[in-house]
């Protein structure tokens, strides 16, 4: 598969180490349809490729947004690009958030750090068909108040009456007047019906495991808990073997997994 050229509309700094690329296709203008939770492989000329979740609105056909941290060779190269530069895109790949399964149910969206990026696509989708879902709860954990991703958007959502947004940070200075602690702890008091809810969780693996535990303690069934996994990827189409996680390929069986499918291996060290 060959990367398609996409042109950068903007590179927007979100927090100290996170940025969002806004992209438009450079050939025929349409980025192509994707489902929330899927990812693209972004190619920087001569440097390499990196898998990044799509965090734009799946209904907006004109633009693709990718939010990522600059932590490796390719992402650091991406951060140095400017408006007008070209990147290559292959995709979309992978499984998506269970927005259909969640119809008629409460939606519990739990995000940790950069994990909010792939969940934002899901939120756009859910809010666009708001009447199809019961309560929608967003629980988000960031490192510090300065690291809160998409803050203006979160504040706007929080002011809506049909969406419950709770944000916690690991630590804060005295200007922060919200919870300080960890996001799994927010699950305990979140307002949703565990017997009729679908949970979508994304973040560092430790945060995933502890959040799932809290959801279980609230009485949620494994079959309605979905998490997004991350592994090394080279091809994104199930041939290079790098993204294997037990019997699954994260690039095609994931990245979104029903927890019941991977529960036996999620806690196993070095699997």
């Amino acid at each position: 598969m060959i990367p398609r050229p996409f042109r950068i509309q903007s590179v927007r700094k979100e927090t100290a180490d996170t940025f969002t690329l806004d992209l438009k296709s450079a050939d025929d203008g349409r980025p192509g349809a994707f489902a929330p939770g899927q990812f693209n492989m972004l190619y920087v000329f001569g440097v390499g490729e990196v898998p990044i979740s799509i965090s734009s609105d799946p209904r907006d056909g004109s633009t693709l947004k990718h939010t990522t941290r600059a932590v490796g060779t390719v992402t650091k190269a991406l951060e140095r690009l400017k408006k007008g530069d070209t990147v290559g895109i292959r995709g979309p790949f992978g499984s998506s958030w269970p927005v259909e399964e969640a119809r008629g149910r409460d939606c519990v969206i739990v995000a940790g750090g950069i994990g909010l990026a792939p969940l934002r696509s899901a939120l756009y989708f859910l809010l666009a068909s708001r009447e199809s879902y019961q309560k929608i709860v967003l629980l988000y954990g960031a490192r510090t108040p300065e690291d809160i991703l998409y803050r203006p958007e979160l504040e706007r959502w929080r002011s809506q009456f049909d969406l419950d947004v709770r944000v916690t940070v690991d630590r804060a200075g005295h200007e922060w007047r919200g919870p300080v602690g960890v996001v799994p702890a927010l699950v305990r008091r979140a307002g949703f019906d565990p017997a009729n809810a679908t949970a979508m969780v994304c973040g560092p693996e430790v945060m995933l495991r502890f959040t799932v535990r809290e959801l279980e303690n609230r009485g949620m069934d494994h079959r309605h808990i979905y998490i997004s996994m991350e592994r090394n990827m080279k091809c994104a189409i199930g041939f290079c073997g790098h993204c294997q996680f037990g019997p699954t390929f994260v690039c095609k069986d994931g990245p979104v997994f029903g927890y019941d499918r991977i529960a036996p291996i999620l806690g196993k060290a070095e699997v």
Partner: protein
Amino acid sequence: MIENLERIIAEHSFFHGMDERHIRFIVGCAKNVRFEEGQMIFREGDPAVHFYFLREGMVSLELMVPNRGRAILQTVAPGEVVGWSWLVAPYRWHFDGRALLATRALAFDGKCLLAKCEEDHDLGYEILKRFTSVVSERLEVTRLQLLDLYGSAA
């Protein structure tokens, strides 16, 4: 309206499953309290006379860090407990506590409760069992905070 303290105690999640007679035994140590938003509840080093079961609002545990200013370490929410320094010598608060929001709580006199626990060891065991659970949960949260999961890769 006079609120029945016994009922309030029994309803708080900390006392879930506790014997009625134990609850009646300790009600004398309890009282309803209110804090205004921003009000300092206790300071580092103060004698830990009371501890609090939160009913409404939010309390933050804070520390003044030289050169960094006031840091919020953890917040405590309704249904949770603030303070176990009254259980452990030298019976002084280790951190500052502030009502982040207007807060209503059940305050217990630590000395009073300790005395009752000495008198009735069954009661003491029930209280300690529950506090162990609270401390363990708080420790788990603290450990996760320590991991700095969202920080840059080590």
